[in-house]
């Protein structure tokens, strides 16, 4: 077991190495793709984190992070990428996500003899494997290993804490929480979402976890009845104004009464390098008195 600082030093060194690698423009190994297209924002982020952004020739119109991703050629949306735009960029590999990109599209690409890689990760716990899969596909295995191991280590911290709390004679009462994606109409993070999983990691009870869909339109009555202790509100356009109207109607809920309503970033909406930052962000809010 290496001490922690060695780990971070290793990451820093590898970042330097990758920068050097990009500067020197060492040709990639024979079978690693030179013209990559990513059809999902989280895959684009992972590719950038693996330092292969030089080889990305096209992204979806939703790929807006990091800033440099916006400069890449756009090949259409998430659920409706343009076959023509993809083919005209002559990619030698297209990366898709199982969670949103159309399956038929991937089949068309394969029938046209274009290499495809489908990332099946849907949960935070699948993320390290997904990163390793992408790393292996684009020939950046070592960097992927570092990134995946880092995420695993950060995940372990939370799991360890769970083990400790479960081993106690009287486990602490789980706080009830609700994560609002959009206030009007009220859309919340429900069953099977990365966000809901993050709440569980933090030992919180998501009151919308039993829904049959991922992002259900939720009943305000139910919030009043469940009385969550904490409310998180995800970032969005014109959110504050609309959310104020909602919070005014939830004034009897403990979270609103005790000032436990937190506006948070959108890190958790994407399964990528920033997901754990989203988990840490929620954890930081929980530490507030």
């Amino acid at each position, binding site marked *: 077991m290496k001490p922690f600082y060695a780990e971070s030093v290793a990451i820093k060194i590898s970042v330097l190495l990758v920068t050097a690698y990009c500067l020197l423009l060492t040709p990639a190994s024979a079978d690693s793709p030179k013209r990559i297209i990513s059809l999902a924002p989280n895959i684009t982020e992972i590719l950038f984190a693996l330092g292969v952004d030089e080889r990305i020739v096209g992204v979806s119109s939703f790929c807006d992070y990091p800033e440099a991703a916006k400069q890449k050629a756009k090949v259409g949306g998430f659920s409706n990428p343009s076959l023509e735009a993809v083919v005209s960029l002559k990619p030698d590999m297209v990366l898709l996500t199982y969670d949103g990109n159309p399956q038929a599209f991937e089949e068309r690409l394969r029938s046209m003899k274009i290499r495809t890689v489908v990332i099946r990760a849907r949960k935070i716990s699948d993320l390290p494997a997904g990163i390793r899969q992408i790393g292996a596909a684009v020939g950046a295995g070592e960097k992927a290993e570092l990134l995946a191991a880092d995420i695993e280590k950060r995940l372990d911290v939370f799991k360890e804490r769970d083990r400790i709390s479960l081993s106690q004679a009287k486990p602490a009462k789980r706080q009830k929480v609700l994560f609002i994606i959009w206030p009007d109409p009220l859309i919340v993070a429900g069953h099977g979402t990365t966000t809901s999983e993050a709440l569980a990691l933090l030992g919180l009870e998501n009151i919308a976890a039993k829904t*049959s869909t991922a992002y259900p339109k939720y009943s305000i009555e139910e919030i009043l009845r469940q009385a969550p202790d904490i409310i998180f509100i995800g970032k969005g*356009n014109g959110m504050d104004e609309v959310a104020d109207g909602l919070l005014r109607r939830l004034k009897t809920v403990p979270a609103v009464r005790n000032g436990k309503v937190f506006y948070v970033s959108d890190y958790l909406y994407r399964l990528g390098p920033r997901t754990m930052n989203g988990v840490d962000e929620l954890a930081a809010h929980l530490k507030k008195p």
Partner: protein
Amino acid sequence: MKLRIAFIILILIIAFAISLIAGAKLINPFAADEVSREILFSIRAPRSIVAILMGMALGASGAVLQGILKNPLADPYILGISSGASLAAALGIMAGAAFLGTFTIPFMAFIGALATGIMVGLMGWQRGGLWPERILLAGVGLSFLFSAMLMLIMSISSDEGLRKAMLWIFGDLSMSEWPKVPYGLVFVAAGVFVSMIRAKALNALILGDEFAHSLGFSPRRERLILFISVGLLTAASVSLGGMIGFIGLLVPHIMRFFIGSDNRLLVPCSALGGGALLCIADVISKSVLPPMELPAGIVTAIIGSPYFLYLLRRKNVLSI
């Protein structure tokens, strides 16, 4: 006849009572704890009242419009008013407008609806009067144009928030609160009232312009007054809770089966029936899959259409 009207009023009252008590969970209003009281007064009551107002606006304006256009297939949304409202709301959301807090987007929708109504009126205006066919075609034309523009905005925008915010356009009553009630009440009461006092003229219009003339009505003036009241009613209903189909088109027909074609009765009864139907539909939409909510528009059509088809089989279709 009096009995039938009393029966419709009773149904509306019962619908309102049920909507207060029923939902995802039953609440006994006489033995409610603090949370239940809060739900009853600040969530269910305003929501049900908004649903009733919206249903009333749609029912009444549907009846009036079928009359002035002499077309059994006319409904308030055919005038393009709803697509104009949606477009204005989408533009407001895109611009991040928030000058009226939670009222901003409904207000934008209202302005969009009114502007569209005025446009349709101007295009339908010829030789000093409104022409039914022209109104209808202008409405359909504008409706296509605005829907296409809305789709364009939706497809080029990558803002997830816009997509979610647009959901309310497809009929959402969940954000109804007390401040919306007086505003809705003013417009809906005014529109229904104007339509009712001009109902006699509407009866005459249906029989033909010359006939209306001989009875002492100015067809052009009457059409304009009625058209304005329909515009106000539709604009108010869209801004209260988005677009909810079926009611404006079919509730007037269902009421014709009940009480006949006399607009003096038909207009108020269509309002009452529309209000009751939307109120009940909203309760069902909340109770089917709690804590999820279905769009109320789906439920109105699912419970309303079979009943309408049943009436159609049983009775002769009544003319307008």
